[in-house]
């Protein structure tokens, strides 16, 4: 894995995570001949045209059939290849959840299931195309690792990191084209080890995926109000980084989990589940998608509707901190 140029990262950020992912995959495939891609008729949607062009014998369009996509992927992985099954997050892993559990999780295969446009990026397309519950499904499957990268650079790091990882991985990609580049410089990325993006002593904002950018902006807003916010990039939701959580429990008085996923079953749940065993752990605000089907609307509308913009996150935190002082 080589360092990637700032120009490339800026370009990928403009194009969005689908391109960051597919271009990273091309780079990985140049280094590793065992990398193959399986996709259910989403070659253009998933920006896989370049991959298909460069590696026509390692690219499989299995038609609009997600269940078989996972089975086929399992067979390829079983024989020692390194398949990436790429679909829209609303359809894989949701539509093929049982296959994902029995064929990949159960046999602990080295396969990667990639969900593009996770969360509510497909806002105008309606609830059939929102992936708000995919982590809830995947977290319950043993052996699976779940990674939600926050920006173009972290997508790139994720693609190369999972190639060295044993066991099945779910990669969940959120964010719109033009999402900020949060890691312009090279950085250490290790699966299962979160990144302290910014230190702070009052509240700990723990975010996963592209919405980390809003968590960082919320910390800026809070700073102006005299509140010190630590920001954690919890790119790996499973296994969750308990060392970092232990530190947060000791050092911060409030936690705000931030995710573009239902407040049921995702990052917030993972933190709360671990926290349940601690008598004096800080209380927690769960910023995420409410437990309801969504109104349709563009990405910006969706994020505002669900309180996933920095202003809402900061306001929430301020309110809870003030309440706790009363």
């Amino acid at each position, binding site marked *: 894995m080589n360092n990637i140029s700032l120009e490339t990262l800026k370009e990928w950020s403009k194009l969005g995570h689908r391109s960051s992912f597919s271009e990273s995959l091309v780079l990985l495939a140049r280094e590793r001949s065992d990398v*193959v891609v399986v996709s259910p008729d989403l070659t253009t949607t998933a920006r896989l045209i370049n991959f298909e062009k460069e590696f026509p*014998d*390692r690219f*499989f369009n*299995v*038609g609009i*059939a997600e*269940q*078989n996509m*996972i*089975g*086929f*992927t*399992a*067979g*390829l*992985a*079983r*024989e*020692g*290849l390194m*398949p990436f099954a790429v679909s829209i997050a609303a359809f894989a892993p949701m539509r093929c959840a*049982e*296959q994902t559990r*029995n*064929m990949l999780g*159960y*046999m602990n295969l080295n396969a990667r299931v990639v969900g593009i446009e996770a969360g509510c990026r497909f806002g105008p397309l309606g609830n059939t195309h929102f992936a708000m519950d995919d982590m809830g499904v995947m977290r319950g499957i043993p052996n699976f690792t779940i990674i939600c990268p926050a920006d173009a650079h972290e997508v790139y790091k994720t693609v190369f990191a999972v190639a060295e990882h044993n066991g099945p991985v779910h990669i969940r990609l959120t964010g719109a084209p033009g999402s900020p580049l949060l890691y312009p410089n090279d950085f250490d990325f290790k699966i299962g080890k979160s990144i302290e993006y910014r230190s702070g002593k009052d509240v700990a904002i723990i975010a996963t995926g592209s919405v980390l950018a809003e968590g960082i902006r919320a910390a800026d807003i809070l700073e102006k109000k005299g509140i010190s916010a630590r920001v954690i990039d919890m790119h790996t939701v499973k296994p969750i980084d308990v060392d970092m959580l232990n530190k947060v429990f000791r050092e911060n008085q409030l936690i705000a989990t931030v995710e573009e996923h239902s407040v049921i079953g995702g990052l917030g749940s993972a933190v709360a589940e671990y926290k349940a065993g601690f008598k004096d752990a800080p209380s927690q605000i769960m910023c995420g998608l409410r437990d309801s089907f969504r109104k349709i609307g563009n990405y910006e509308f969706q994020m505002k509707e669900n309180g996933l913009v920095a202003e809402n996150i900061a306001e929430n935190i301020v309110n809870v901190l003030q309440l706790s002082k009363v």
Partner: protein
Amino acid sequence: MEKKSLINEIKDKTELMRRDCIEMGYAAGSQGAHFGPALSCVDIVATIFFGVMDHDPKNPRMPERDRFVLSKGHACLAYYAALIESGYIPKEMISQFKGNDSILCGHPSMNMQYGIEVSTGSLGSGLPIACGMAMAAKIKKETHKIFCVVGDGECNEGIIWEAAFNAAKYKLKNLIVIVDINDFQLSGTTSEVMPLNLDALWKAAGWDVSYIDDGNNVKEVLRVLSEIKKSNGENPKVILTKTVKGKGISFMENNLAFHAAPINEEQYKQAVEDLKRAETKRRNQ
């Protein structure tokens, strides 16, 4: 001459395998076992393991081995019996079928030490995995074959057809599927539950279709499987094979009650008696 002795050898194995099936199923006690769907495909599985498949029980991970995938995973008694009679699984493990912390689950769980190639049991899962394995062999330019046994009831599953279309698209000629048509599924005959024209469906999916009129006749099964293994057609191959559910046990044959059921001591004795009688009859022929 040599072929005749191979047929007899496989027939000997089917006798041992049917006994193993009954012993394992009886050992499971009140938990019972899927006797019917296992006994229908014993002759098919035996012929694959002892007649056509290249494999080495002393080296279960041999890269060039032919692969076997039991897509109708509930018929695992037949699979385990073949692995026992091949020497992958020690005979002493028969008593462990469905036992606590046992390797021999009620549906196969991948375990290469014992020759269990993939985990199956949720219907429709074996075929797509077998397709991926066949594709991998093609990519790696390996010449081994993938044998996959699918149930007729299992063909209700949509994923079977997703996989079938995909295998034809990628011309997985190294994939040989045997559909065990025993005419029954859990709640009735296949024609009652979900009438399917399997012949037309597999042809329409783009597969080369062959037939075995009596899938419990080792000679027939061996003849067709050997031909198919040698054939060099470009398409994936499917063999539609008519069998008898519960074959070999008088009170289980074509009896839906023994799709999955426990057997009591009396039934166990009867089953052993049936098998002995058939063995004696064969030797006196």
